[in-house]
């Protein structure tokens, strides 16, 4: 953490009546980096985004931009004074304003000529310079998103928040739109927080990843690290399929059905071993398993197999595996993690 954060969130909480939507949440957003906030629906990720945007007050904790306190209990800098841009899931374009006027909405107070120039540049950046006079409803979903983005970026905010930016788009559009969005955001150089519930999307886009569940941040850091070394079962499952096997820790070493794994710092007693299916491979001198189910998935098959009393998932190349086959598997235990039970 050598760079200074653009936005710092510490110990933030937000309650709705008896329900805690967000508790003790913390994260850092840095200029030029994309932070993805991943969580299942109801995990509090959208609420956290609204707290950072200033659309709601915090009940505890603090949100700062540099030295300036943006949110603290009893004190909320209003959204219009935060210099934080927000792109909504539904884009929230103003239907009564043309595309150009939508983009120019946040540029009040500038001389007309400058304003016009900046609108045109912002629209050029998202390749919509010929649509300034169009009405929002005449644009496609992807174009509407680009207008929403241009409308936010034209104000050159230090931070941009995006709420589920791809959920309204058709699958075949997503990758194309994603590339364009990444490019534009990188070029803008702002700190970006992108909220999503799609693990693949988060892993692909994130410079920094924040995982949320049940209103709490359960892990944050480098995407690959999070993927390979989840901090908990919940964190592991958020990013994709994972095998969870019983383990028993004694003296910093965990005994598991796959063998012994170092578990530094864990107390003695029951624990769990987490390992992704990709790191279980058939072949050689490994452990004996019986295949129970197979599902063909292109260049590999997803296989469910019995290992003693436990059930594991693994990826087997091709379509060779058949239920009832006995297969030996090897685990890459360097990619396994032991977490408290």
């Amino acid at each position, binding site marked *: 953490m050598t760079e200074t954060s653009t936005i710092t969130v510490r110990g933030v909480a937000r309650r709705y009546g008896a329900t805690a939507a967000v508790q003790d949440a913390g994260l850092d957003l840095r200029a030029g980096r994309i932070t993805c906030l991943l969580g299942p629906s109801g995990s509090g990720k959208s609420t956290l985004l609204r707290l950072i*945007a*200033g*659309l709601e007050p915090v009940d505890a904790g603090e949100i700062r931009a540099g030295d300036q306190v943006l949110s603290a209990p009893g004190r909320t800098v*209003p*959204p*219009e004074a*935060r210099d*934080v*841009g*927000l792109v*909504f*899931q*539904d*884009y*929230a374009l*103003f*239907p*009564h*304003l043309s595309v150009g006027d939508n983009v120019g*909405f*946040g540029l*009040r107070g500038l001389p007309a000529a400058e304003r016009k120039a900046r609108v045109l540049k912002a629209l050029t950046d998202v390749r919509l310079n010929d649509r300034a006079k169009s009405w929002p409803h005449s644009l496609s979903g992807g174009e509407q998103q680009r207008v*929403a983005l241009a*409308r*936010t970026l034209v*104000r050159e905010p230090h931070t941009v928040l995006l709420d589920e930016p791809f959920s*309204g788009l058709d699958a075949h559009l997503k990758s194309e739109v994603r590339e364009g969005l990444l490019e534009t955001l990188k070029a803008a150089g702002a700190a970006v927080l992108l909220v999503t519930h799609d693990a693949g999307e988060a892993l692909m886009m994130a410079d920094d990843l924040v995982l949320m569940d049940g209103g709490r941040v359960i892990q944050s850091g480098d995407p690959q690290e999070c993927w390979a070394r989840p901090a908990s079962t919940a964190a592991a499952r958020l990013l994709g399929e994972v095998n969870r096997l019983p383990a028993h820790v004694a003296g910093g070493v965990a005994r598991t059905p796959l063998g012994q794994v170092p578990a530094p710092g864990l107390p003695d007693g029951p624990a769990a071993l987490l390992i992704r299916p990709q790191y279980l491979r058939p072949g050689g001198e490994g452990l004996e398993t019986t295949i129970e189910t197979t599902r063909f998935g292109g260049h590999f098959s997803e296989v469910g197999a019995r290992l003693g009393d436990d059930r594991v998932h693994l990826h087997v190349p091709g379509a060779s595996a058949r239920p009832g086959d006995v297969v030996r598997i090897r685990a890459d235990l360097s990619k396994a993690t032991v977490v408290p039970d």
Partner: protein
Amino acid sequence: MRLIGVLAALVAVLPLIGVVAAALSGATADIAATDLTRYALTSVALAGIVAAVTGVLGSIAAWLVVMHRFPGRGAFEWALALPFAMPAFAVAYAYADLFDVAGELNSWLRAAAGVALPFQMRSLWGAGFILGFAFFPYVYLAMRAAFTNLPVHALEAARSLGASPRRAFLSVALPMARPALAAGVALAVMETLADYGAVQFLSVQTLTTGVVRAWFVYGSLASAAQFALPLLGAAALLLWIERAGRRRRAYGSPGAKWRPLPVTALTGSKAWLAFAYCLLLLTLGLLLPAGWLAWSSIDVQPDWPRLISAARNTVTLGVGGAVVTVALATALALAARSLPLTARVASIGYATPGAVMAIGLLLPAAWIWSVVPGGSANVVAGLALLLYAYAARLMAAALEPVDAGLSRVTPSMIHAARGLGASEGAAAWRVQLPIAAPALFTAAIVVLVDVLKELPATLILRPFNFDTLAVIADNYARDERLANAGWPSLILVALALPPVIWLSRKAAHARPGSE
């Protein structure tokens, strides 16, 4: 289906054909052009005043009630629609009497302070004030719905783009509600043009005066109908505005998640100011005129048997008119999916001045009277004719909710029903109507309230020995016995209040996502 729709439209359009037919026949009257210009200008000015008064009053009330919290807000939310239960003519009686130069208030003021109020209700501005307060609920209800359904994201987006709450309201919320504002104001102006009792009572001379003079004093039905044509044109224009407004109300993003509106809690003097504003609207629109009528009639011994029988007639006509009108409107709306023009034309009756409608209604009436045994002495035919007149006059009022209800049925639902073996009629019966049933009920209530207050068609077409409360009130008012006119008016308000309360409360709680 298509045939039924065309028939329903024809039923509604017949009176208008009657007006046009009358305009093309017979000798024209020699009415001075300057008088006509004056009438037309007065009509335009009155419509303008009513549009401004209802637009401002209704919008502010809706904005306060939807976006703020202050004492009494929960009650005002539905109570502000209650002036809708008060017939415009009754409001006119009350205010004209209350503020008359020689009325009790001014007499007392003169005696006590030696001054009189510097304004008069029997004037263009007075009529604008009275009709404005009688009709502002149209704008209030439309704007309340618009603000309630406002996509909250749009407001939040505006804030995050640097707009203050005030600017977010002015430059986002208000423009997005503009179609609703246009629709509400159009309804209020239509009612103003169609008004019969109030404007005449206040001796404001509008184009309707011209129609009546041409028809009766000069005995030229043709001239009367010719003066009516511009009014019909205005009616058609207003309907078009209202329709266009409704189409653009489909604004917003279907994918958006519904969120409760950001409600500002008002405190201190602001809260009391909001309270006072809402109370003032309610007072001037309902409590003061109704109270004054009650106060003036307190010494009058009402003729109960006559009033009760009139009340029974009024309710019977109201229910019958509601059923017939909604049935026709439904047939029309079902057919209008393929025939949009018929629906629009059939709605013109709503904005047609009462006196003009009377001309037009006599054409189908004459035909019915000539074929049924006993002519207009035939009570059943007479009542049927009245119900028909209500349908022709109030089609637009029913068409809007019915249309909205039917639009909840997506084409794919009908296709699914057809795919499961239902005929077109069966699909309408088993899928469209049940889904639209709540909307049909709402439409029926709207028409019911309008029929209760209806005057011109009832006055001219009703069968023998058949009075409604509005007719009795009008009789007394013409005879300049306002104290006597108070009772039927008040009973009318009492009858209209429950359905209006029901309507208003229902609409107040209808929010997307809260169903």
